């Protein structure tokens, strides 16, 4: 089964969480729930800002070092976008449950691939942001995230946006970046061998994909990117639809 590169989302579908979202892209499906601001245990309390707790749970098995690493990336990222100073001595819980990962050849076995755990990071980041939006958490900005794999072959190199797991593993280097809606970089994770030129090209491509707000037509025409892959547009349209649905009685 070929996984769709087009993202899809379902918002506010869990009834007891303050905000929730199910996001799928590239064969990954993540269910996210946000609770907060709620009471925080005394030992974790911060006097000046809200505590953010991120929990990543794998589809099979219990979380290990890989999940802790992803949690630490998510934690430092979300701290930047949530207005934590608005909620001193509170807790914001973000739970991300992975429910589907791309099919690999060994059906049913635990998906253990060393080094490839970053592949799910864009899906986790996107789910967390959509769940936060669903919970109406005050945010400084929203972020959008894209992964890119570079297949370098001698002198020629090929950039693949939203690589599949196979493309991800066979790539010479992979890059995961997240940008705010103002076009500022938030997360930059790279893996593999690459040159500075490679990296700069990736940076510009992802920026165009994530952001491309003003002068969109010019930018896209220049870089050959169609508006369809734009993640920011996707988040906006998903939220727009949700609000329209919630306010259907209004018209």
């Amino acid at each position, binding site marked *: 089964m070929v996984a769709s590169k087009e993202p899809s989302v379902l918002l506010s579908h*869990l009834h*007891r969480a303050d905000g929730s979202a199910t996001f799928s892209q590239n064969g990954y499906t993540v269910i996210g729930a946000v609770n907060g601001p709620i009471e925080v245990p005394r030992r974790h309390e911060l006097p000046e800002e809200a505590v953010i707790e991120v929990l990543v*749970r794998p589809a*099979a098995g219990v979380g290990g070092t890989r999940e802790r690493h992803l949690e630490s990336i998510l934690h430092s990222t979300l701290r930047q976008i949530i207005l934590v100073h608005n909620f001193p001595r509170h807790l914001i819980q973000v739970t991300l449950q992975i*429910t*589907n990962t791309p099919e690999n*050849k060994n*059906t049913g*076995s635990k998906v253990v691939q060393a080094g490839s755990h970053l592949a799910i990071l864009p899906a986790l980041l996107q789910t967390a942001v959509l769940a936060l939006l669903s919970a109406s958490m005050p945010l400084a900005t929203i972020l959008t995230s894209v992964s890119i794999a570079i297949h370098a072959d001698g002198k020629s190199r090929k950039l693949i946006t939203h690589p599949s797991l196979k493309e991800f593993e066979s790539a010479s280097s992979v890059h995961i970046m997240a940008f705010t809606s103002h076009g500022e970089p938030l997360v930059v994770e790279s893996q593999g061998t690459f040159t500075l030129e490679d990296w700069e090209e990736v940076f510009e491509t992802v920026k165009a994909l994530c952001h491309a707000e003003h002068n969109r037509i010019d930018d896209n025409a220049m870089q050959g990117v169609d508006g369809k892959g734009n993640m920011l547009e996707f988040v906006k349209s998903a939220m727009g639809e949700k609000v329209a649905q919630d306010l259907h009685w209004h018209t």
Partner: protein
Amino acid sequence: MPREVEPSVNERQFFEKALAENLRLDGRAFDQFRDLELSFGDEFGVADVRLGKTRIHTNISAEVTTPYPDKPFDGLFTITTELSPMTSPHYETSRPSDPEILLSRILEKNLRRSQALDTESLCLIAGHKVWSVRADVHILSHDGNLIDASCISVLAALQHFRKPDTSSEGENVTVYTLEERDPVPLSLLHFPYCVTFSFYPSTVEEGETVILLDSTLLEEQLREGSATIGINKDGELCQIAKLGGISVDAVAFLGCVQVALARVKEISTFVIKRLAEDAKKRDKGDLMAELRAENDR
């Protein structure tokens, strides 16, 4: 962590008064279940059960390990349940809560000890290599009756799961990938589903009990006692767990078992129907019969 909000005195009184008038808060009859929804994932062994607002996602995985030295012929079957903060913020991640312990114990009793999954069939080389089947029960949303829903979810996922085909030559075991050989289903001996009853002391008649089926979270919080009956569709009783202090009339309790049996028959047909629908969806071009690696017995 904040504590779970207990129902207020008003809620309690309103509920009791409704019960006295033979009403439930959501308008169901006392023995009526909420709508059951079951869907399967793209991968084998993924089942998503919705019972009203309760939602359970089960993922089955298998890997080859060494068996326990005292049981060299038995494969391993483990069920893990964890109530995450996704369900409700008062569940802590590190410490198992009471409902969680209860849930895992009942699932253990109902599915593992009743030998629903034939663990001997998971043996590859006695004493050296066996399959270890693991069921991860993810509770996404909790609105009462977790036990029944998880039980359906695990059994449906087990029926949906296919483990890779293997062949053994002396001490060497070859595990074939999906492309090489079509995976084989697990050997399941019977399907014991759970049905939970909630008991309330009657306010109309002294000493009588009101029995509710498929209770919501509020009804669960207000109940005086409960009984979980695990039974398969052939009427073989696998386990009974009666919790809470309230005493229940023996005849009424036997009646519960009959109700459970009728309900389990319904669930079984429903799950089989959904499995058949899913198999049809996967069976592109009617090739499945030829590709199958298992023998007809």
